[in-house]
Structures are given as structure tokens and as C-alpha cells.
């Protein structure tokens, strides 16, 4: 039998606020345990939550980006359960009336366009962390994470393969980073997924029993966990078994999922509206403010790049995969409006390659867009060849990298002349003076009688050999187009 896998994702995106969602404590990562847990995070008797406006704004921004409905009023609810790292004995979350309801996310997977519908995106606080390693026979509690703002983005079960699920998670990851609501750092847990997986016979429209795989914090684990889980379910069914609804954990070391708890011991969370927080009213005005402060969305920018710069859909997609790349590209292209394709090639080519090698992102690029644009201008005006430009680029890169300041923190004025300085000081300027070229060519003709004979006998190959000799004699600086033209005239 043919089987179809059905996947829905719950993505927890940690919102990039300075302080927690219901207290003034910092959200900074990596400090000593409990150093950033205030009385509210510790749930001391009598303390009360106060909602962080910045978290709400980020949720609204997300809602607008996916074309969702922004609910007003939106209600905060208590989700009650006991766990030592849940200090209040309940988590403040949203149940009925989340801030964001509905919406869609569209992306490319294997050359085709796919749209996933969202159920909702709701605000909630993170719990703390239990530390088992440092205490012999005991458990320590670190409440620094407690109260960290999360946006839980819940999709409909619209994905049909691990590849689709990964593509969806990646586009979401890029979107939350793009609109500046989440840093997307998966190692630090800022972006993590739960996958709901079920299987059914191909063609069936009835959903199978699902299992939820918790806390997948890399795209690779997401893919492997889904593939493993689907195989596991298919095997059970094919052997005549039935799937138990369960919560499962993925073990990357063994590449398998295993049961955490089943539906039977699922908790009754006793949700009810949190009486400490009034219903959240989100005015049209507030929504407009958020809208006007939001950046252009990647999809919008992508069509604009195709329209305004005449880029291919591949180039525009690559350039808008990340907001830093897109912004960098536009800054270069603004300086060299006559040749956006050249700009795109150098941004996606040389610059990306150097950054990748050094593990940097575009906002930490040593070269400024102005500096790159100036180099490209020198290609356009014939001062240097494209080949020579790569050498100039290399030298520019090393110089700026060793100065160790990213372009964003530098004064734009000092950018302008770097390429010229290097071309000048290293004598890399292209020889375009026709007198000098004629001399070079005359010398090469005189020294390569055999090739000249062959060319005159009709061998085009011999012409290329002669060009090569001229370029060699000019130490790579001769303008190849001019060399071609002069040589051909001379050999007539």
C-alpha cells in the first residue's frame, strides 16, 4: 500500500524583547543560574504579572506578515500543572482568542509553490530549566528562562513530507528573523519545533492517529525525526497494529523517537482566563503603528527585485533568503544602478563565499556595500578586468578584515577609495592605452611567427594562443577586448 505522511508543526519562536513577557527581568542568555529571575519569575507570594507591550507588538507584526486576523480583545489564560521549573504552578498562555488567528505561509519546495495554513499564533511565557548534571542525586532549578516571551505558531496539518516540513520551518525561521521578532538562534533554543505526525493510505482524506514529537531544535533533526516516526507508524499499521496517540522524544544519537507519555496520562490543564491580566485590547491604531514600523516582507521584496532590477526569480529568491543579504545587495545596487546583475553576482558569489568561509553573516561583512560597489564600478569602466577584480577583492577583504570592524560600525566616507587605493598602489590598472597595447602586440607577433602562420592558414585556435601571449606579456593587466580588436586588425 502507498502511504501518505501528514504533518503539522508547532513552532516556538522566542521573541527578541529585552525583558520578559510579564516581568522587568532581562532575557539575556548565558548568565549564572537565577541571576535574571526576579520576584515575579520566582513566583514569590503576592507578585503579579504585567504584560510587556513589546511582546504583543512582535506578535502583531507576525500576524500582519502572514495575513492573519489580529484578535481584540485577546485573552491570557492560565495553563495549570505542577513541575518544579514552573514556579507559579501554571503557565500564562493563550487559549481562546490568541493574538494571531489564521494566516498563511507560502514557499517553494522542489520547484513548486506550497501554501501552509496557520491555525493561530499565541503568546506565552517559557518555563525554567531543571539542572540534573551539577547536583549529585538532586536537581537544581534555573529560572532565568522562566517568563521568556514565546510566540507559538501552530500550523494546520498541511505538510505531506519531511522535506515540506523542513521547507516550511525554514521559511518561518527566515520570516521571524526578517521581521525582527526572533533571533532564530536554534542552539540557544530561540526557535524550536514540535511536529505532529500521522500516516494514512494515499488518497484517504481521513486523518490518522497522530504522535507529537517534542522539542526539535535543528532542521536536520526535524527531518530525521519525521522520517523515522512515519516509518515507525507505517510498520505498526502494516503489521496489523494501531497507533497510540502519544507524545514522543527524538533521540538524535540513536536516530529514533521514543514515547514520553500517552493520551491516557495527558494532563487536564484546567485552562481559565487569568484574572490578574485584563483582556488585551488591540486598537486599529496600534495595528497601523506596528504595520508602518514593519519592514518590507521578503515576498514583497522579491517581486520588487525582479521588477525594479530585472533579476531572475532565482537571484531574487537567493537575495531575499535573509534580510541582511537583501539590504546589502540593495545598498550595492543603489551605487551601481546601471548593472544590478553584476551586483547580484558579486553579492551571491564572491562576497557570500568569503563570508561562508569565515562563518560570518552579511551584517558582519568586513567590506561595506560602498566599497564593493566601487570595485564593480572599476570593472564597468574598464579600469580592471573581472579577473583582476577578484584579486583586488581579496586584498580589500584582508585589509578590512584585519582592521576588524564590521562595515555597519564604520564611517561611510572612508569607504569610497579602498578599491582605487589597492589598484593604484599595486599597479593593477588595466592597460587600455592603445599605444602601449600595440607595442605589446607587435612584440608578441614578432616572437610567435608560427602561430601567426597558423592563424593566417585559418586556425582560429592560434588566435586565442596569441591573445594569451599578449595577456601574459601584459601581466594580466591588458584590456582583453582591446587586445582582441588590435590583434585582429594587425593580422589582417
Amino acid at each position: 500500500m502507498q502511504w501518505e505522511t501528514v504533518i503539522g508543526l508547532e513552532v516556538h519562536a522566542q521573541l527578541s524583547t529585552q525583558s520578559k513577557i510579564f516581568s522587568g527581568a532581562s532575557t539575556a542568555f548565558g548568565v549564572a543560574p537565577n541571576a535574571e529571575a526576579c520576584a515575579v519569575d520566582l513566583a514569590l507570594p503576592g507578585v503579579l504579572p504585567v504584560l510587556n507591550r513589546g511582546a504583543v507588538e512582535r506578535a502583531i507584526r507576525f500576524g500582519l506578515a502572514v495575513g492573519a486576523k489580529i484578535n481584540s480583545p485577546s485573552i491570557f489564560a492560565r495553563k495549570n500543572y505542577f513541575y518544579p521549573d514552573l514556579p507559579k504552578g501554571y503557565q500564562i498562555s493563550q487559549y481562546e482568542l490568541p493574538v494571531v488567528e489564521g494566516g498563511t505561509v507560502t514557499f517553494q519546495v522542489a520547484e513548486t509553490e506550497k501554501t501552509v495554513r496557520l491555525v493561530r499564533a499565541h503568546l506565552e511565557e517559557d518555563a525554567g530549566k531543571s539542572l540534573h548534571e551539577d547536583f549529585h542525586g538532586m536537581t537544581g532549578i534555573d529560572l532565568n528562562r522562566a517568563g521568556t516571551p514565546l510566540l507559538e505558531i501552530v500550523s494546520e496539518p498541511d505538510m505531506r513530507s519531511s522535506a515540506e516540513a523542513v521547507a516550511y520551518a525554514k521559511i518561518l525561521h527566515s520570516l521571524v528573523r526578517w521581521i525582527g521578532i526572533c533571533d532564530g538562534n536554534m542552539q540557544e533554543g530561540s526557535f524550536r519545533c514540535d511536529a505532529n505526525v500521522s500516516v494514512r493510505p494515499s488518497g484517504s482524506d481521513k486523518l490518522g492517529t497522530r504522535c507529537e514529537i517534542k522539542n526539535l531544535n535543528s532542521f536536520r533533526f526535524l527531518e530525521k525525526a519525521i522520517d523515522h516516526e512515519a516509518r515507525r507508524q507505517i510498520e505498526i499499521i502494516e503489521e496489523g497494529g494501531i497507533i497510540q496517540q502519544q507524545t514522543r522524544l527524538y533521540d538524535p544519537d540513536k536516530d529514533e523517537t521514543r514515547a514520553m507519555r500517552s493520551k491516557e496520562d495527558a494532563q487536564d490543564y484546567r485552562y481559565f482566563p487569568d484574572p490578574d491580566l485584563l483582556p488585551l485590547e488591540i486598537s486599529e491604531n496600534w495595528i497601523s503603528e506596528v504595520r508602518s514600523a514593519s519592514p518590507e516582507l521578503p515576498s514583497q521584496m522579491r517581486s520588487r527585485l525582479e521588477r525594479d532590477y530585472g533579476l531572475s526569480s532565482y537571484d531574487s529568491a537567493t537575495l531575499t533568503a535573509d534580510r541582511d543579504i537583501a539590504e546589502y545587495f540593495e545598498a550595492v545596487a543603489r551605487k551601481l544602478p546601471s548593472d544590478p546583475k553584476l551586483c547580484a553576482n558579486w553579492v551571491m558569489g564572491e562576497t557570500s563565499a568569503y563570508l561562508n568561509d569565515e562563518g560570518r553573516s552579511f551584517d558582519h561583512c568586513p567590506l561595506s556595500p560602498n566599497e564593493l560597489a566601487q570595485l564593480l564600478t572599476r570593472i564597468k569602466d574598464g579600469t580592471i578586468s573581472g579577473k583582476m577584480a577578484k584579486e583586488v577583492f581579496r586584498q580589500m577583504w584582508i585589509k578590512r578584515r584585519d582592521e576588524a570592524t564590521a562595515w555597519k560600525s564604520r564611517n561611510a566616507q572612508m569607504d569610497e577609495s579602498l578599491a582605487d587605493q589597492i589598484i593604484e598602489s599595486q599597479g593593477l590598472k588595466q592597460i587600455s592605452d592603445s599605444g602601449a597595447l600595440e607595442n605589446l602586440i607587435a612584440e608578441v607577433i614578432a616572437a610567435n611567427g608560427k602561430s601567426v602562420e597558423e592563424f593566417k592558414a585559418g586556425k582560429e585556435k592560434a588566435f586565442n594562443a596569441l591573445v594569451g601571449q599578449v595577456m601574459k606579456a601584459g601581466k594580466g593587466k591588458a584590456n582583453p577586448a582591446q587586445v582582441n580588436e588590435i590583434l585582429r586588425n594587425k593580422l589582417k
Partner: protein
Amino acid sequence: MLNASLSQLSALLAAKKISSVELTAEFFKRAQALNSHYNAFITLSEETSLAQARAADRLIASGGAKPLTGVPIAQKDIFCTKGWLTTCGSRMLSNFVSPYDAGVIERFNAAGAVNIGKTNMDEFAMGSSNETSFYGPVKNPWDIAAVPGGSSGGSACAVAARLAPAATGTDTGGSIRQPAALCGISGLKPTYGLASRYGMIAFASSLDQAGPMAKSAEDLALMLNVMTGFDPRDSTSLQREPEDYTRDLQKPLDGLRIGLPKEYFVDEISDDVARAVEASLAEYRKLGAKTVEVSLPNTSLSVPVYYVLAPAEASSNLSRFDGVRYGYRAPEYDDLNDMYRKSRAHGFGAEVKRRILIGTYVLSHGYYDAYYIQAQKLRRLIAQDFAEAFKQCDIIMGPTSPTVAFNLGEKSNDPVQMYLSDAYTIAVNLAGLPGMSIPVGFGNKNRPVGLHIVGNYFSEAQMLNVAHRYQLATDWHTRMPAEPGNID
């Protein structure tokens, strides 16, 4: 001095006729001497109180005195007080020394008031007789066989017995007004949101409200001026212009329309209470007010609605007491769940457990719609009843409690009987309205009777005016219980 009002004490301090240290020492001496008799205080700390008194004296000397500077005030043990044991009447917090001050406490500190001690209370404010306290019951100063009412019974007793000139209380279903009535003092629960709940250990968040307890309406006004005001740390705190609650005290009552809900004057009231309340209404007519009959048709639903909603919120609010971070932890346990189980089993008393169980039940899947949602709908109807009534009257009056103080142990094994003693006060919390109780006479066994005064939202100044004019014309609020005999 022990019988002086807050304004008198304030004037004496400002004129430097007495020092705060002298005043505090005198009240402290009395509180300490009589506490074994009344059990009104859980914590008395002479050193801490005197340190605050010395600071107040310095403030007075520097000319920076405010109306309550140097005056001793007893604080209900539900308010977190920095450096003081803050138990909320529970074994669960019997070792909890708060590292911070509640919003209300900060305001008293900023005014230069002296904390004279932490008063006894029903455990986590759950009770109407002060018999659920881990620290034992408080005695009614008018008759030590009787309960003082709850849950602010320690505060009511301390004021009635002159162990403190005034005290704070909290009121979730009548916990300021009912003990005020049973102990013969004045007490006011403000409009919900007027006083900060920050640092006030939560029982039922949507109903809890802090308020003053004192001998007279005038004293309540002085305290209210200090206690209320916006607190950004409490999301339900109201942002309003500060008011001077003493401003309307003297206004004549001519033309005041007093609404008497027909549902309040029925068989459940005992005769002695009915007589005293009738007499007080006659006095009001003499003062120029007229009475009109109004109806609050959903009154009978208040107690059941309350005993769905309050336990629901309580079951969640009390889940932070798990023995993990602070408070009581069982000495021996097998594993994590066992630690939770034993800590909570030993840490909480019977009434608290009963309400946690009720609350867990009404919120659980399958019962939520039938109980919690239904109760929320009825709560709205109850609030609408008041809105209708206030179209016909300025203020509503009735008995605070259907009976005078009952005997210790009399209702402690019958929770439903106990719950009914708050039948008149609970609806006011459900609607979020302000309510107060003032002494208007004595009933059986010479036990005090309270008149319940309910105003519209933010009508505290008017309510205090209504109460003050009555107190100018009568002397019930100045009556004192007999001094206990054979006390050293």
C-alpha cells in the same frame, strides 16, 4: 490615648505632645500583654516597630510629617512585609520572611506609619470566623467565647480591643466587613482595583481587595487616602486621579436616597440584628435621608456563584506553594510527586484543601462549562442587579451579617452554614463595588451589629460621608468592650 482617633493621634504627634516612640511603645505593650488572651497577632516585633517609630520621629522633627506619620497600624498577615514573617495564616508559609513590601505596605511606609504587628487571619483568607488559621482562632473582644469573624479577624479584634488604633484588612467575600460588624468597628472594602494587590497574597484575584479597618469612618478616610492609588505592578490596578476621601465627610445627608433591597430583609436575619439595623435606618431618616425599596433579584445566587469562582481562582493561585522554592517542605519524601503531595498535605489546612478541591473540580475538563462559565454569566447578572438598583437610590443599606458573632466551634464543622454568614457581603465583591460596615448597636449577648453600606463604583467619599454623619449623631463606634480581667 488608646481611645484616640487617628486624626487625634496624628495631631498630637505633629504638635510633638507625644513621640511616635512613646505611642508605639504604649500600643506595643498592650498588644503584647493581651495577645495571649485574644490571639490577634501572629507576629509582634518590638524592635522593628520601634525602629520605624524612631524614623517617624525624625521625619516629624524635620517637618516632613504626613497625616499618618508615626501612627501605629496593624497589618494583616496577608501583606508581604520586608523583613517580617509573612504567613498568611498558614503552616505553608510559617517560615516565609518576605524579601519585599506589598504595594499597600510601601504606601504606609512612605506615609511614615509604624507597623505595630502582623495580624492573625483565616488561612489564606479562607474563612468567616478566623478558626482556619494555623495559628489558632482569634477571640472576639466583646465575648471571648465568640468568633471575631473572618478572615480579617485579627485586625478587627486588634482595633476593637484597642491593641492598635487601626488595621488593614482584605476582603474577598466580606472579610473586612463581616469581622468589622462582629467586632463593632468600621471597615471598608474599596472599589475593585483601587488599592494595589501587589504583594497581597492572592486568594481569588478577581475578588480580593485591600481596605482599612478602624474605629470610625473618619479614620477610614485617612487610611484610604494612604492605601489607594495606581500601582503599575498590578495590571488590574486603576489609573485615576488621587482623591481626598475626607473632603465630603461633613456634607449633610438631606435628600439622600437609601435603597433597601427587599431580598435582604427576610427570615434569615435574626431579630436582634434586624432591630438594630431598623433603628439605624430610623436615625438616617432623622438625618434627612429617605429610604426606598429596591430589588436585587439574583442575591440568592451570590453564595453559590462565589463558591465556584473563588475556589477556582484559589486552586490556581495556591499552586505556587509546592515546597520547591520557599515555604514549608515535607521533611521526608520518596520522589518529586511525593514531595509535592506531602508538602501540600501537611502545609495546608482542611478549609484550604476543601477549596482547592472544589476549584480543581469546577475548572476540570467536562465541568468547566457547567460551573465556571455558568458562574461567570451569573456574576454579570448580579452586577447588573446593582446597576439597576443604583438608578433608584444613591446608596444601598442592609445588615452586614445575618447574625451577631457566633460561638467558637459553632459552625466550624458545617462549611455551608459558615459560607452563608457572608450572604450579604459576597455580591458586592462579585460586582466589584465598594462596601463598608459600621457599628449600629448590639444584639444577643451584647454582641455588636453592623450596618452594611454599599455604594456605586468609586463612591467611597460619599459612603464615608454617609457613615460619618451617622457617627456624629450616635456613639456606637465609641463603645468599648470590657477590659479582660486578671491580665498582667
